[in-house]
């Protein structure tokens, strides 16, 4: 079974870390990740930019693009995509296509700050 581990924390608090402290935390996490990677058990790892950098596409008809993160609490996180795009406009276009295929709910589009593709054995 594949498991997704979703990371939650106070972004103001994490954002106030010094560069050294941040690097220190990352290197400690790397030790855990490297072990999984060697065992071929690590999938993609991403660290997202702050919610202020987020854009939300509400999959209404017609779809509505809003600035900021997805703030409602009545829906639940059901999945995610990692896509490579030239810029935000291109990412919004992809989200629109996905939304047309599966209307209802919303997509939150967040730039990825750190990305590790992982190495999962088949």
């Amino acid at each position: 079974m594949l498991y997704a581990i979703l990371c939650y924390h106070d972004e103001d608090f994490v954002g106030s870390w010094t560069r050294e402290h941040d690097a220190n935390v990352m290197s400690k996490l790397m030790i855990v990740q490297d072990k999984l990677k060697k065992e071929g058990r690590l999938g993609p790892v991403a660290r997202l930019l702050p919610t202020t950098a987020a854009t939300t596409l509400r999959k209404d008809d017609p779809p509505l693009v809003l600035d900021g993160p997805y703030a409602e609490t009545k829906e639940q996180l059901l999945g995610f995509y990692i896509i490579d795009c030239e810029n935000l406009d291109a990412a919004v276009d992809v989200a629109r296509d996905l939304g047309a295929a599966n209307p209802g709910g919303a997509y939150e589009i967040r730039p990825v700050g750190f990305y590790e593709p992982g190495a999962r054995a088949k």
Partner: protein
Amino acid sequence: MTDATWIDAALTSARPQAVGALLRYFRDLDTAEEAFQNACLRALKSWPQNGPPRDPAAWLIMVGRNAAIDEVRRSHKQEALPDDASAISDLDDAEEELAERLDGSHYRDDILRLLFICCHPELPATQQIALALRIVSGLSVKQIARAFLVSEPAMEQRITRAKAKVANAGVAFETPGAIERNERLAAVAAMVYLIFNEGYSASGETSEIRKPLCEEAIRLARLLLRLFQSEPEIMGLTALLLLQHSRAAARFDANGELVLLEDQDRSLWNEKLIAEGQALIDKAMRHRRSGPYQVQAAIAALHSHAKKPEDTDWAQIDLLYGTLEVMQPSPVITLNRAVAVSKVRGPEAALQMIEPLGERLSNYFHYFGVRGAFLMQLNRNEEARVAFDRAIALANTSTEAAHIRMHLDRLIRDSQPHREK
């Protein structure tokens, strides 16, 4: 995380909302601050035992308000009131109710108002900044005095005076209309930029001490952006601060001397901040409502994207400065544009461009520094030397002077033909 760390972080991040709401309630800054202080003291007692409340700001507002009301009652009746413990035990239900009400649009205007009262037009810029750091950010007078390089009593006095002026100013407490709100937001954005510049313009020796000013400005810009999520200029402002701050580690050498953009070790630039700045510019551009912060951020981003100085897209930077000149005509912007022009069309064209600015910028250090550099590129060394001498005389910090001296040394070196390069 220890108790002290998370409580401290929670109090800091709840502060603008809590003090803003208490100010709306009491309509007096000192009372609001005192109420918040009281609430913090109770939080320090209650939170380690009971864990953090679901909504720390709502908790602090509720407790702060009750404490202040108790205070008034106590001074009126002079009689003992039930102890704190019982007052707090009733809080859970009340908190829920209050949190509901706070969820609306009120708190956005509360925070904006709190920042806005610091922007009183009669207050000089330094006092606006000091007041905002004290009231909104909650920095201690000692911390602020240190960042401004003045004594603690002097800063205390400055803040007290600023508060007195603000108290008499009569800020509207009604929910502002759209136009009023936009005006407030623009004034507040300008003040946040001032806070950043206060930290950014530090000399080498003081840059470490003043760095918190830059970080605090970024924190406030992010706060504004979270409150006003669809304002492209607030995205632009935040992006601009992030992009400029991304170079902090490369701006001074080991001796504390200023390192110019083209000479900086670009591997020291903070990629994370650059990525975030670019993401915000992308968001802002989708609104097709350009403004000075967005344009300046776009210029900063073009520098950030150049892996080597010679990769810089100067033609685009020239165009963006042209846009900025139209938005905010200013000799300083023309001067900056001239630097881009010198790269695209050569120093002769750039020199012609800044020639008419001489009178208005006759006391501006950078004017003579830039002029000297253009003249030097044209091998008009004697004139360059005169310009550099003038720049040194006008330099605000020893770092600026040292930087110009470096140019002078280069001139002297290059004027000795037999010396090897």
